[in-house]
C-alpha cells in the first residue's frame, strides 16, 4: 500500500515537472526569444501600429506571462484532483 502511495506521489511529481518545463519554455520563448533575440527581425512586421518585436517586449510578453500562470493554476488543480492530493 505504502509503495503504491509512493508511486502515485512520484507520478504526480513527474507530471508536475513536465508541465513546468513546458511552461518555462514558452516563458523563455515569448520574452527572451520574441522580445529580445528575434526582436530586430520581427520589427519588420507592423501590426496595429506596433512593430512586432517592440510589441512583444513592451506588451505581449506580459500578457503571455499572465496566461502561463493561469494555465499552470488550472492544470495543477486538475492534477491535484487526479492524484487525490488536493486540500479540503
Amino acid at each position, binding site marked *: 500500500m505504502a509503495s503504491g502511495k509512493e508511486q502515485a506521489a512520484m507520478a504526480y511529481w513527474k507530471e508536475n515537472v513536465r508541465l513546468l518545463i513546458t511552461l518555462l519554455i514558452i516563458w523563455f520563448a515569448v520574452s527572451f526569444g520574441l522580445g529580445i533575440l528575434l526582436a530586430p527581425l520581427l520589427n519588420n512586421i507592423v501590426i496595429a501600429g506596433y512593430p512586432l518585436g517592440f510589441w512583444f517586449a513592451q506588451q505581449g510578453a506580459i500578457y503571455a506571462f*499572465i496566461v502561463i500562470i493561469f494555465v*499552470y493554476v488550472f492544470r495543477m488543480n486538475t492534477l491535484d484532483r487526479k492524484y487525490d*492530493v488536493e486540500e479540503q
Partner: protein
Amino acid sequence: MDLALTTYLIVGATFVLYIGIAIWAKAGSTGEFYVAGKGINPIANGMATAADWMSAASFISMAGLIAFLGYDASVYLMGWTGGYVLLALLLAPYLRKFGKFTVPEFIGDRFYSKPARVIAVVALIVASLTYVIGQMKGIGVAFSRFMETSYEVGLFTGMAIVFFYAVIGGMKGITYTQIAQYCVMIFAYTIPAIFISLAITGNPLPQLGLGGTVADGQSLLNTLDNILVDLGFSQYTIMKGTTMNMFFLTMSLMIGTAGLPHVIVRFFTVPRVRDARLSAGWALVFIAILYTTAPAVGAMSFYNLINTVQTGEVGAEEGNLAYENVPGWFSRWEETGLLGYEDKNDDGRIQYYNDDNAEFESTAQSYGWDGNELTVDRDIMVMANPEIAGLPNWVIALTVAGGLAAALSTAAGLLMAISSAISHDMIKGIINPRISEKGELLSARVAMGVAILVAGYLGLNPPGFAAQVVALAFGLAASSLFPVLMLGIFSRRMNSAGAIAGMLSGLSFTLIYVFVFKGWFFIPGTNMLPDTPENWLLGIGPQSIGAVGAIINAVVATLVSRATAPPPKEIQDLVESIRVPRAA
C-alpha cells in the same frame, strides 16, 4: 480649490484610511504579525502583493525611463513581470506548503543548518535595507514637492504613518493597508493615462493607444522614431545597447524579483497551496495593469514634451518654441529644478536635440544651435502628466497620493521582512529559542520600530551609493536566495554544505564583480576597471551580473552536494512532503 489644499485633503484622507485599517486589523499573535494568520483571500493577496512590489520606482520613475530609453527599457517591463512566472511555478506553492513564517526559516530547516539560516538573514537584510532607502527618499521627495514642506517633514510624516500601521497591525495590518494603497495607486496612474491616450490617439485604452495614430495620420511609434532621428537621437523602437547585456539584465531582474524575500513571504499568507498559485496569477494581473500602461505613458508624455518645444519643422527658423510662449506646466516644473532651460545661443528659443551625436553636429551648427538647451528629469514624466494633459486639480492631487502609496506600501513590506528576520530568525531561532509568544511578538514590534528608525536615518543621510545599491539588491537576491530555495525544492539530494557553498560563492562573485566596476563598497575612486562596456566580462554590465551569480550559485551548490553526504532521511521526507499539496 487651490492645488495645495486639494492635495492636503486627498493625501490626508488616504492616511486616515491607512491608519483606520491598521487599528481594525491589529495583530494579536505572532502568526498574525508575521503571516496575517494565513487567512488572506488569494485575490486580495494578489492585490497586496502588487502594491508591495510596485515601488516608488515603478510608479514614478519607470514611465520616464521608458520615455528616454524606448525599446531598451523593455528589460524592466519584462524583468519585473517575468519573475512572477518563476515565483508562481518554482517557489510559491512549495514554500506555502512548508507553511512557516520567513524565508530564512525555510533555508534553515531545509538545510538543517543554523549558519545557512544566518547567511540567509544577512542576504535578506542587506537586500531589503538598501531597497528601503530608495522608498524613504521617494516619500520625502513626493511630500516636499507637492505639500510644500521640507524634505525632512515629508520623510518624518511618512515614517510616522508606516510606524503606526506596521507596528500595530504587523503583516495583517500591512496586507489590508496595501490593498487600499493598490486602489489609490492604480486610479492615480490610469486616470491621467486614459486622458492622455484619448487626447493624443483618440483611443481611451493606453495599451492600444500606444499603437494608435496621431494627428498627422502616422502611427505614434513611427512618428516618435522619425522625430528622434531628426533630432540626432536613435529610433525609439530599436535596440540601442547590446543584445548580451539586455538578455542578462532581463534575466537578473526576473530571478531577482523571484528571490526578493518581501515578495516571497506574501505567499505564506494565503490559506492553501492552490491559493498560493492562484494568488501569484492575480498579483501579476494587478501589476500588469500598471506595467502595460507605463509604456504608453512614457511614449505619449515624451511625444507631448517634444511637440511642446518642437512646434514647427526641425531646422526651420520658427521650428522651436520661443521661451516666452511656454505653457504653465513648463514654468511650474522649472521652479522645481526638474526641468531646466538654458539659452545657449541667445535666440530666445528652446533647442532640444542630441548634442552627443558627432554626426549630427554639423546639422545642428547649420541651424545655428549651440548645444542642447533643455534638461528634463525623467521622474517628471508621470508626475507632470496630469498637468500636461490639462486635468483638474483633484487628479494631480491623486497622483501625489498614488506616488506616496507606492512608496509607503513597498517600504512597509520591506520593513516587515527585515523585522521578522530579526525577531523570528535571529532572536527566536538563534539567540533565545525559549522566548514566549508574547515576548516574541513584543520583540517583533521593537525590531519593526528600530528598522523604521534605521531606514529613516538612511533616508535623511542617504549614502552616496544609494542608487547603485538598488540594482545591487536585485543582484543579491538573485545570486543568493533564489537558487538555493529552488534547489531545496527540486533537488532532494541538495544538502547543507552545497547550499552554504552555493550562497557564499554566488553572493561573493556578484559583490566582487560589482565592486570592481563601481568601487569597493562603492567608495569612489576605488574601482579597478572603468565601468564601460569594453571592460565588462562578455559585455555583461554590473547590473546584469546577478543572473551569472545565480548560475554560479546553482552549479557550486550542486557540485559540492554531490561530493558530500546526502541529507538525512527526515530532510528528504520534508522535501517529499512540500511537493504535495495535501499531507499524505
